[in-house]
């Protein structure tokens, strides 16, 4: 069976416009959460957001993608996609090959233009410029058209675990022999729809999120896009891969539409499945990038899951959502990128905004300052979403 290597990645978030910019920001422990400048909402000044510091017009300049009605989601997806394929040095025939899959994800899609959608859906006035672009899969179609992609395409929407599931599916496609490579990830923008949605559930924090902290009061929304280029060991040739994807697992908590069960059976099952696929014992994990949204429910249940899976030896862990905010569908891929940076640089980016642990044991393992480590062989990344959907990925270094 083929092995699955990451040969390229591209990303844009509140931390920077490229992977390199984001690495600098991660190292300097500077959060991307702040005051939104471009996002228009009643909450723009009263709630913190992790916004990409570019207007839509500036994103058009940056990507050179000037199509009328191109949504912000499409623009950031394009940017990240461009960087990923350049990083992987994919040749034109490889990119357009029938054996190159493209799997993306988005929860908001073109619905970031709430007011236009309201008008078009209620047939008020003339059609907006976004009339064709509301579907979550629209950005995929634009990328396919722009790059003449011919291979298997897919869009996944499992809320917060979407792009983690896209990565997992890409790996399975490669291992089945059906494709040689898969470009996988996702994109999501700040949108009135999700801001008001999470706010209506009372899980948005009035100040920046505090993952795993006893005084956490909810999540902070962010926006971003990230893509990984996965390639089979049979085709990546002379390239030096960034990391290897060795484990993955998906499970459903089957408890409640928007909360995790107290016994965290879904997260525990997902993590154990990933360890099983990787063929390693839990103590081999050097670092966990937690889902860690900063909600009362997620962090408590996720830490409980750590205790069940890892016993007394919970690995070093952090949630980087206090850097990036919760980027919804993009979170899995964005955090995969962060894990790979961790692996390559043998360092852990901290769990910012941490003051008081939600329980005493947290202190033993949580990383609160940027930390160099001697060993970074296996790294786990978790994403747990609405509908009980949970996915765990395990990356390993190549050396």
């Amino acid at each position: 069976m083929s092995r699955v290597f990451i040969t390229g990645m591209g990303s844009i978030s509140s931390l920077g416009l490229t992977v390199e910019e984001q690495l600098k920001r991660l190292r300097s422990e500077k959060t991307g959460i702040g005051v939104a400048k471009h996002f228009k909402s009643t909450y723009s000044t009263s709630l913190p957001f992790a916004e990409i510091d570019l207007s839509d017009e500036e994103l058009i300049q940056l990507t050179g993608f000037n199509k009328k009605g191109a949504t912000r989601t499409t623009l950031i997806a394009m940017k990240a996609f461009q960087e990923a394929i350049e990083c992987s040095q994919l040749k034109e025939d490889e990119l357009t090959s029938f054996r190159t899959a493209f799997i993306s994800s988005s929860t908001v899609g073109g619905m970031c233009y709430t007011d236009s959608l309201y008008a078009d859906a209620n047939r008020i006035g003339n059609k907006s410029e976004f009339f064709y672009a509301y579907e979550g899969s629209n950005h995929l179609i634009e990328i396919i058209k722009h790059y003449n992609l011919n291979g298997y395409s897919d869009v996944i929407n499992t809320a917060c675990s979407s792009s983690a599931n896209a990565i997992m599916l890409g790996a399975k496609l490669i291992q089945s022999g059906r494709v040689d490579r898969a470009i996988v990830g996702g994109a999501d923008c700040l949108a009135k729809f999700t801001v008001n949605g999470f706010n209506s559930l009372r899980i948005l924090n009035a100040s920046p999120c505090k993952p795993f902290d006893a005084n956490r009061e909810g999540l902070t929304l962010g926006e971003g896009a990230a893509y990984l280029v996965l390639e089979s060991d049979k085709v990546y040739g002379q390239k030096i891969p960034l990391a290897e994807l060795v484990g993955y697992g998906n499970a459903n908590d089957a408890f409640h539409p928007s909360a995790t069960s107290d016994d965290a059976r879904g997260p525990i099952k997902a993590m154990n499945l990933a360890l099983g696929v990787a063929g390693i014992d839990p103590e081999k994990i050097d670092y966990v990038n937690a889902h860690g949204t900063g909600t009362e429910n997620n962090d408590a249940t996720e830490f409980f899951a750590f205790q069940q899976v890892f016993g007394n030896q919970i690995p070093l862990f952090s949630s980087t959502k206090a850097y990036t905010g919760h980027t919804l569908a993009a979170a899995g891929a964005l955090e995969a990128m962060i894990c790979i940076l961790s692996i390559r640089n043998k360092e852990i980016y901290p769990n910012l905004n941490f003051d008081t642990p939600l329980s005493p044991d947290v202190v033993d393992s949580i990383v609160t300052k940027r930390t160099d480590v001697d060993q970074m062989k296996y790294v786990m990344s978790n994403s747990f979403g609405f509908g009980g959907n949970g996915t765990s990925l395990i990356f390993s270094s190549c050396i």
Partner: protein
Amino acid sequence: MYLIDVIAISPQRTFTDEFISGDFQIHTEGKMLAIEPSYMDLIPASLLRRMGKAVRMGIGAGLPLIKNYSSIEGVIIGTANGGLEDCIKFLNQIVEYEEGVLTPTNFVSSTPNAVAGQLAMMGQKTGYNSTHTNGSLSFDNVLLDASLYLNEQQQDATLLIGALEEISAYNYNIDQINELYKDELVSNDELLNTKTKGSICGEGATMFVVSNNPNGAKVRYIDQFQITYPSKTNFSQLVEEFLKVNNLHPSEIDLLLFGNSGDVRHDHWYEDLHQDLFADKPVYTYKQFCGDYRTSNGFACYLAMQLVREDFKIHGFEVTSKPKYVLIYNQFLSARHGLILFELL
């Protein structure tokens, strides 16, 4: 991968035996609304009260299968839009109340993976769970995802998979702006005779039990092929190559089930493929039954499962000896094209 069982809620009386016994519902209002069962016996009121139509149909079709097949481990659903009605209701609240104090129910049930999540919750299924939202390839994606999962398992494994789409006033409006539907009123029995632009909107939920163990199944999923924005010049050749990879020649395909939609702008894809590769065979269509919607090929797969009955001579089918290989072809607005290959056992 074997297709063991199916339940369909559609604009025909497919939830009961009437459609299979020959009943054909004619819709004259321009929208083909699904004929829904009474859900009060199927779904607890405490959950039903929160469900928009898409979720109701998905649960209504899926839950009985979950109850009857305890071996089901996980759920995979394909839907282009999910519960768009709930989504727009929430958006309307945002605008009406100027982002003030809003009720969360519409938001929670509008997420496209709400159905897969609810089915998992109601059936206590903690296994693999996913939702594909790739427009008109969503159900094709589901089939491949399911077959990958089932082929990986060391033991017998079973999944619930489905195709789902609802008509809501709101997504209908947006689709109208995008010129998907006919300007004139046409009934579904006349649809495929029209030579004008647009089709008629349909909706439905089609849920399947699939397994890696034959279990007396009558339908085996072999493979699929998909392409977005293909070139007209080599499309038929690509289809021929797809069949070849599966050790089949076009002449061996016994039954063609195509997604002709009555849209004069786009139906030529079906006509051309028919002429190029299958000129000596009749083409059967399915959108006269279910209307046109992104995941309508789920309904086509439901029909394929009915074709295993001998002498299937209802609804215009003239099948005397059981076909062996069935090819389903669906495309949407000339953009996304999907072919599904089944073997009837």
